[in-house]
């Protein structure tokens, strides 16, 4: 397709706005891999995001919260 109205004048992606070296290695602008399960079709980035969310929630349930001075139940004023 032709350059959009906001692309650089030369039509090539500007070197200043191209992805970082690491993101180029991940090919962030390439087509995403997809997971197809029955009628469910989900992109890998989305699936990873949802998996991370579930993991965070489970971790929040299981990882002990530091209680510090709480157990001693100090009676000092606020």
């Amino acid at each position: 397709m032709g350059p959009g109205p906001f692309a650089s004048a030369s039509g090539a992606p500007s070197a200043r706005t191209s992805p970082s070296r690491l993101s180029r290695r991940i090919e962030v602008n390439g087509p995403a891999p997809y997971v197809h399960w029955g009628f469910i079709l989900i992109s890998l980035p989305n699936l990873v995001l949802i998996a991370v969310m579930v993991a965070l929630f489970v971790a929040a349930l299981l990882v002990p919260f530091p209680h510090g001075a709480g157990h001693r139940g100090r009676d000092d004023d606020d």
Partner: protein
Amino acid sequence: MTEAGGEGARRPGGGASDDGRAGSGAEGGWTAAVRSRLTTRLSVDELLPARQPAYVGSWVYVFGVVTIAALVWVVASGCVLALMGSAWWHTSSLGHFFNSIHFWSVQMFFIFMVLHLWGQYWGAGWRDGRAKTWMVGVVIFLFSIVTAFTGYLVQQNFDSQWIAVNAKDAVNSTGLGGFFNVLNFGQMYGLHVMLLPIGVTLLVVLHILQVRSRGVVRPIGDPYTPEATGGSRTGERPR
């Protein structure tokens, strides 16, 4: 020190400096009523206590404040993008970086907002008079989705075009298409950078005030019983 948090506390003899208008109920009219409500439910002690119930010691409780943190960066990066204009991020690497900050903080905002929703659902956080807090939270969720939607529409790139052309059919089917025109960049931009963020922010402030004024809901199985007596075992100051 500030007044103790007694519900319905009224200043005795407060009518001397008021105009003594009849029919407003509390002495001092509406002003005194608002002041009384604010100082009893939302005094600085209520808003910023130094102690919380010990049962708040669970990582599930941090999802709310992390969501707020994400929102702060969404708004801050959004302000920079708005300051520099809608085309800036396409031609400037600094602009693109700020767009990235905006993009990822929005992702973080939704991630932690949903985690917060899950936590509140499984803890039945609406109990003990907190139904309105839950409802405001759901409204924030829905409002945020609309805000994000307008955001995607004003990126001024292929994604915006595609989303606009496809979303129009759903919006049109409701009869709103003539009043909320997803193809109209000017309208979507004004909604996204001003009207909707103001709405979200006000709702979030309300939500926080609701939580602070009512306190954190007690665990399921350890209910609040109004008849319960007993002295303070915990250092909590008596009324």
